């Protein structure tokens, strides 16, 4: 292997033009990486710096006078811990629903014994390509009592045609003998699903789970449309959006957290609208940043399979 490499290198020499391309490429991609990474870093260092400096825009490249008071204060805000719970709950429950249903239907749609299999598969799959629009959807949800209701986050996305197709394709690639052997041994439809199919299709389930979880965590539109009265059901995304947009309510919040807590709270650590905004942003984005690098290969696999299908 080593030898081959060296042979390769002597075969052609690097011209000036090629070297120039190298330098320019490295330079440009460093800029791209910086543009994508720096905003996260910028907000993070501001959330742990002297709040007064931060408010005046003086914290740009490294944290100044580090303190973690913002996190303590922000987590003490009334709306936040609750919104956090809602976001976690919908992510966990929603993901379980989506994954289990995608696996089960993906499997069932490969079973030739299923009554009108092709028709039902198309019945589900075609829903990827149309939707009734915001108003009819909202009115349906209202009729079903799913407005201001936690299940409004879960049920509409529980049956996800795209993930079902991914699972179906995967099940089809599993040797049929596995199923028929189990059938001869007397295993029923459900037994085969739990004992044979699930263990085999685990890799694709991981991909589906990670996509479904990110989608649930990030979901904002359903919150915006469905939650009108019961603000206890607002997710982190909604709370963050409100914090950014309603400067006036934020001010009230700021004074309520600082006045009682300690009048002696110095300018450096007292909450400001900026500090709360930045701290909440970091809190909302952290789960994604923690999850992403470790599961990158599952994400990448997801887009690949999707591409083959698409």
């Amino acid at each position, binding site marked *: 292997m080593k030898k081959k490499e060296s042979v390769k290198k002597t075969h052609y020499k690097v011209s000036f033009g090629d070297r120039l*391309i190298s330098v320019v490429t490295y330079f440009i991609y460093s800029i791209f990486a910086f543009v*994508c990474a720096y905003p*996260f870093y910028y907000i993070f260092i501001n959330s742990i710096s002297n709040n007064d400096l931060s408010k005046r825009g003086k914290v*740009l490249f490294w944290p100044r006078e580090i303190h973690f008071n913002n996190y303590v204060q922000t987590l003490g805000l009334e709306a936040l811990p609750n919104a956090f719970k809602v976001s976690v709950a919908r992510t966990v429950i929603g993901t379980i629903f989506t994954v289990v249903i995608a696996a089960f239907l993906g499997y*069932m749609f490969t079973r030739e014994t299923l009554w*009108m299999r092709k028709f039902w598969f198309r019945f589900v799959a075609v829903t990827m390509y149309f939707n009734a*629009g915001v108003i*009819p959807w909202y009115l349906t949800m209202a009729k079903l009592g799913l407005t201001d209701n936690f299940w409004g986050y879960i049920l509409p996305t529980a049956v996800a045609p795209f993930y079902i197709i991914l699972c179906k394709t995967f099940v089809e690639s599993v040797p049929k003998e596995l199923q028929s052997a189990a059938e001869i041994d007397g295993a029923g439809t459900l037994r085969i699903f739990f004992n044979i199919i699930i263990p085999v299709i685990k890799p694709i389930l991981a991909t589906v789970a990670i996509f479904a979880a990110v989608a649930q965590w990030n979901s904002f539109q359903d919150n915006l449309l469905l939650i009108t009265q019961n603000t206890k059901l607002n997710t982190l995304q909604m709370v963050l959006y409100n914090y950014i947009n309603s400067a006036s309510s934020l001010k009230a919040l700021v004074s309520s957290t600082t006045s009682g807590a300690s009048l002696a709270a110095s300018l450096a650590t007292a909450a400001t609208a900026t500090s709360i905004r930045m701290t909440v942003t970091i809190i909302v984005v952290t789960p994604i940043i923690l999850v992403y690098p470790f599961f990158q290969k599952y994400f990448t696999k997801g887009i690949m399979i999707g*591409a083959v299908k698409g």
Partner: protein
Amino acid sequence: MKAFSNKKKLRSYREFLYILPFIILVAIFSYYPLYGWAYAFYDYVPPNQPTVADPIFKWFQKLFSNEVQIKNTVRVLRNTFAISGINLLCSWFPMIFAVFLNEIKCRPFKKFVQTVTTLPNFISWVLVFSIAFNVFSTTGVVNEVLKGLGLIEQPINFLQSSDHMWFKMWLWNTWKNAGWAAIMYIAAITGIDEEMTEAARVDGASRMQIIRHITIPSILPTYFVLVMLNIANFLSSGMEQFYVFQNSFNTDAIEVLDLYVYNTAMQGGYSLATAISILKTIVSVVLLVVTNKISKKARGEGFI
């Protein structure tokens, strides 16, 4: 024999019973709302009972009824076309991004760039907006740096103006999506036959020549499919991105079709909003069928 086939039939019905609950969910959440299209043919102002519109196409006609409404319709369509158009015209960017990323030989650096640039795809538009707000606010880093360099005296209020709105929306969309979109091309490039590039190199081809004559031609089919999908979704720019960036200063330039439907509905125009949705769906389905046909003609298979 008869008993046997009966048993088989029974099983096929039983299996249907297993999936029935999920079929019902699909029916309720995807098919049943279609019935709500009827509201486009009614006068409906909640909480009043809907009454049949007179004339029946009243709400469709309303879109072009008076000067103010026509102006609005044209404005919204112009925004939608402009933003989708810019996205379509610049859709080659992720491809070029992937091509040159592939030229980077230092693997850790490549991996780092790839990880960092795909990350924004996984944060919500609310978070993107929050980042925009923090970075571009009057005391944000951009204004501070510009001031520090002496380029501006007064901070610029980037988010509260409608200047270059279409372009800004494209920039944010690219910031969020380009790295992720590039992954597909990177995979396609990995699939290129090594021997072909090696042979070209031995023949003295420069890197640019290899890119032009080997790399790009081999990933063009992937690009073609994505362009087709882009065209099929031309009217569906989504509303989240524009909703979060919307404020009273920039509404005129940012209101795309999907957002307009939402805003209209919020002002009580349920019937009008539904009428717009219907028109949009019809056009979208036509676009989808047409692009799918084109794709079938061009590469022998559609994407549906």
